[in-house]
């Protein structure tokens, strides 16, 4: 793995000038992912914050070939580009080794884009799919997604007098992706650059579609203090809400186990979307979330142990 000094010397393929918010995780994720790949890269992006903020015509933050077509289909779009590359290479019309990366938010991945992602995974196109997961439809103004955690207040699952925010727990996208028997799937955070870079390296060397789920803070939607963005992602790991793990050819591997598991309230109290849960009267609801986080963490540990 390259040192951070080596990374800093690499030519940036995602460059400044984009219009993402200060404290947004997506820009950090995009920059880290692109730095981690030391080969020619074609990038695809689903409609969403990253895409609209980085490609406002006539400007672009992508110093590498880039394509956006629509919201629900970045995996299918890159399937086409990757297939074109394979045939053109076979025909001797291109000689480079090219890496294909698709970026989608949680909307473009967990929800509207799930079908095209599943199709691309099953067909085994050689691409890295990165879900920059900010846990709601942030680009359209903080609507709930199937990645939104239980209890979070969003504009379509608002905390009200009767309902305390989103009722459902988030979808387990990692298991869904692992169930496709893809060669590599991992969960990471931008707050640990080395974990992220390491995983991108492994993913881009995998033979087939690889998937990385990156927690990506949204200062407007969560909301949080911009300067705490990276810290918040690390706290998500410490509370076991967002474990760092990878699944290589079906085998689970935990990359980090907190010495002392912190209660979820530690994570919640830094974000406005959970503020209502910390008020008196919502203890029971809060407890149900802690129980589910514990249950999922234990499940994951078991999966990692059996390997």
């Amino acid at each position, binding site marked *: 793995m390259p040192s951070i000094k080596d990374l800093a010397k690499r030519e940036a393929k995602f460059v400044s000038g984009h219009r993402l918010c200060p404290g947004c995780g997506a820009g950090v994720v995009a920059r880290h992912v692109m730095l981690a790949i030391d080969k*020619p890269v*074609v990038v*695809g992006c689903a409609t969403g914050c990253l*895409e*609209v903020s980085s*490609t*406002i*015509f*006539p400007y*672009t933050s*992508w*110093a*590498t*070939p*880039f*394509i*956006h*077509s*629509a919201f*629900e*289909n970045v995996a*299918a*779009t*890159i*399937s*086409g*580009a*990757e*297939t*074109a*590359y*394979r*045939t*053109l290479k*076979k*025909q001797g019309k*291109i000689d*480079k080794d*090219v890496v294909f990366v698709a970026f989608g938010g949680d909307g473009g991945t967990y929800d509207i884009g799930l*079908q*095209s992602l*599943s*199709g691309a995974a*099953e*067909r085994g196109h050689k691409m890295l799919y990165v879900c920059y997961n900010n846990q709601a439809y942030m680009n359209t103004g903080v609507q709930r997604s199937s990645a939104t955690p239980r209890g979070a207040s969003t504009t379509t699952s608002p905390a009200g007098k009767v309902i305390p925010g989103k009722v459902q727990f988030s979808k387990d996208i990692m298991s869904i992706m692992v169930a496709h028997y893809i060669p590599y799937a991992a969960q990471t955070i931008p707050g640990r650059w080395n974990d992220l870079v390491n995983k991108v390296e492994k993913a881009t060397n995998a033979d087939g579609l690889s998937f990385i789920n990156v927690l990506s803070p949204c200062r407007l939607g969560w909301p949080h203090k911009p300067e705490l963005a990276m810290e918040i992602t690390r706290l998500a790991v410490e509370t076991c809400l967002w474990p760092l793990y990878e699944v290589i050819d079906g085998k689970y591997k935990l990359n980090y186990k907190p010495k002392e598991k912190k209660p979820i309230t530690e994570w919640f109290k830094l974000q406005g979307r959970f503020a209502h849960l910390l008020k008196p009267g919502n203890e029971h609801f809060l407890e149900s979330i802690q129980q589910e986080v514990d249950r999922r963490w234990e499940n994951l540990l078991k999966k990692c142990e059996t390997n």
Partner: protein
Amino acid sequence: MSIRVAKTGNEAFAEAMRQINPDVVAAYPITPATEIVQIFSQFVADGIVKTEYIAVESEHSAMSACIGASAAGARTMTGTSSQGLALMWEMLYIAAGLRLPIIMSVVNRALSSPINIHCDHSDGMGARDSGWIQIFSENVQEAYDNIIQAVRIAEHPDVRLPVMATTDGFILSHCLEVAEFLDDDVVQKFVGDAPHRPNILDFENPITLGALDLQDYYFEHRRQVAEAMSKSIKAIDEIASEYEKLTGRRYDFFETYKLDDAEYAIILIGSTTGTAKDVVDELRSKGKKVGLMKIRVFRPFNYLKVRKALENVKVLGVMDRADGLNSFCGPLYSEICTSLYEANNRPLLMNFIYGLGGREVKEEDIENTFEHLFRAGKEGKTVNTVYIGVRE
């Protein structure tokens, strides 16, 4: 140089695709277009084409993958029908807006609901404003000839728009007709190598494709699409001339049949034209001055040329195999009205909706249509819209 064999419309499309030998095909099966990709995937499995075939999980992904492949510089083809085309709707506009020369065979079929697998033109008409060039076929020969010309039209440097060539579901897609097929090398020579386009595999000149255009640029880029569509008229004509030299078959934006001195005429699209030509012959033998026009290229619509060909007709019946559901008329009627508004002698115009969901069109239906026109001519007034062959 060429052989005459009996093939169905679907076989003809698949055969043309084999001869074109595209880099990438991404498709999803749908009745009655399924056979096209079925036959073609066998060509891939047998290694007789260089094509990489992507068996996608939906038509939306089919068009999305075509967009990715075409953006990467690959010559890219697909095929679909009806609901499949409808599911692609979002991506059709994007393919045209990104100026990607994707070539698609479309087998025209009714749209749900109610679900129906047979022919009408509602699917194609739903795509008429998407920026795709649309070429309809009367028979298997035309389908074959149209899809080959489509490659050159799409990739023409002044055009760079996606093209769909269509057949009528089941009527053409599944019926055997004798047609003349060119030799492989003749087709290869005609389509040639795809001209270079900016693409996302060019790392020396990286492009951002599909950027966000706001109030300051969107309009200019859409204006360029409109300009490309206008310019395609000349390109379509030139490519047709080149194809004529090769085959002896002349293709125009439309075909006229006994129209020159006709007082009463009908206009239609697709396979019903054959039946209509027989009726024209029969009425001519009875001394009626009748004729017809068959629209081949619906997008772009050659308004000026259509006007010139129609302005001496007395009464004109426009036959739509799709309803506009606008409380007045079908889509072809609107185009013909637009064409004729500035004509020196404006014919009386009537609109007929026919053949929806594969409803059989018999000679007496066409005769009935002409009867309406004769009556309108006699009374000097028209009725709109007439539904032909429906139980009211």
